[in-house]
């Protein structure tokens, strides 16, 4: 029982065309940059994977990570709460040109739908979005005199997440607000691949401090000095690197 994968290329090798992929991160924190870039490397080398559905709070920032995935044309559809961005314009342009699909979901509903997917809850009711355009077509029911909207679970074929410490069984901890959606996505994907800043032997994480128990994690790959998306974007990084 050792879930370590020796390198990033191997970690993402099994993701096929058309897969639904949850990717951790909120704004610039928690994005598994190295896993995403490994996916881009594979696409540039082999033409695959493409036609992906990506689930993330945003639709990419700058020109790295998810933004770079979209720029490469690997993404067919985004599921997110806040896809608007001044930079890059690529999602905006593709969306307005009808080249990329968008499912817009309120942020708390997105989180809860993902948790529901992981917890075996096929549907739940929430007050969020009642009476708005985002509730259109969804069943509505009243409980204790208040109206609620029915929402469905959200699952994925893969989750790519970034964690701080991971043991060989896949138990994970996170770093500050980089936690965000990742523990939920780990539950909701058929296969969860975590890049960890530090891989440790079982026993290296206090059982009280485990945030994601290993049962939710398929494999871990150590990336000892991970890039931070916001830091990359402030340095105007592009992936793949723009050669001058």
């Amino acid at each position: 029982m050792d879930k370590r994968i020796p390198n990033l290329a191997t970690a993402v090798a099994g993701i096929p065309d058309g897969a639904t992929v949850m990717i951790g991160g909120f704004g610039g924190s928690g994005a598994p940059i190295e896993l995403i870039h490994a996916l881009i490397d594979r696409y540039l080398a082999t033409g695959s994977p493409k036609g992906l559905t990506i689930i993330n709070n945003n639709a990419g920032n700058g020109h790295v990570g998810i933004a770079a995935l979209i720029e490469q044309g690997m993404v067919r559809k985004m599921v997110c709460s806040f896809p608007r961005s001044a930079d890059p314009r690529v999602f905006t342009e593709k969306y307005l040109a009808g080249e990329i699909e968008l499912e817009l979901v309120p942020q708390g509903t997105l989180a809860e739908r993902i948790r529901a997917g992981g917890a075996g809850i096929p549907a739940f009711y929430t007050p969020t979005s009642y009476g708005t355009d985002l509730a259109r077509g969804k069943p509505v029911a009243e409980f204790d005199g208040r109206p609620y909207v029915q929402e469905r679970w959200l699952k994925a074929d893969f989750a790519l997440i970034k964690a701080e410490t991971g043991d060989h069984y896949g138990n994970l901890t996170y770093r500050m607000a980089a936690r965000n959606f990742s523990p939920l996505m780990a539950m909701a994907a058929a296969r969860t691949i975590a890049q960890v800043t530090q891989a440790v032997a079982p026993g290296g994480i206090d059982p009280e401090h485990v945030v994601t128990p290993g049962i939710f994690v398929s494999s871990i790959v150590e990336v000892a000095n991970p890039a931070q998306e916001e830091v990359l974007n402030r340095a105007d990084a592009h992936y793949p690197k723009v050669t001058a």
Partner: protein
Amino acid sequence: MTPKLTNAQIAWRAAQDIADGAYVNLGIGFPEMVARFQPPGRQAIFHTENGILGFGGAPEPGAEDWDLINAGKKAVTLKPGTAFFHHADSFAMVRGGHLDVAILGAYQVAQNGDLANWSTGPKGVPAVGGAMDLVHGAKRVAVITDHVTKDGKPKLVQSCTLPLTGVGCVTRVYTSLAVVDVQDGRFVLREKLPAISLDDLQAVTGARLHLDGAVGDLVVPEL
């Protein structure tokens, strides 16, 4: 030119209504400014959607840790007693009624408490974030806003014409001219700038302002 409050002054006024020990979420952008004006001796605990409770203000420039940000992607700081949690727990706090106050911006607020603050129509890329969640659950949902739009149209209206964020959710509006409660489907004027007459205020308001007792003077410090 009509006198009106600056954004900082609106934020200051809203901050005066936050009780000691309150759990508060401030919407991204303008509402974040409210945190600066906590009255001395009162301590609010701030919540951000991306999984932090009890964080502190902005770090010194250059000292940012970009894994320690608020929902507006601005760097914040740790304080003794901060807690981290994931997004589902974060919105359990929101939706489950655990916040005392949420303060949001607005395009329009209707007299029945309907709020429009996420979309100006079908153009461009729609983006909603946590706004539709925040308007449900917090015990008080307050709006801070200019009293009118940039081209002078009322933001307090009979019914919203822009896409709704939530139905009947706003309880109080702090504007550049007045403090208005939403009560039983009506706007009730609580305070107004002393320099503006009731008639002039009504003229820039899109729905009837009702009175319920004395109207206080909206007095704020220079900021």
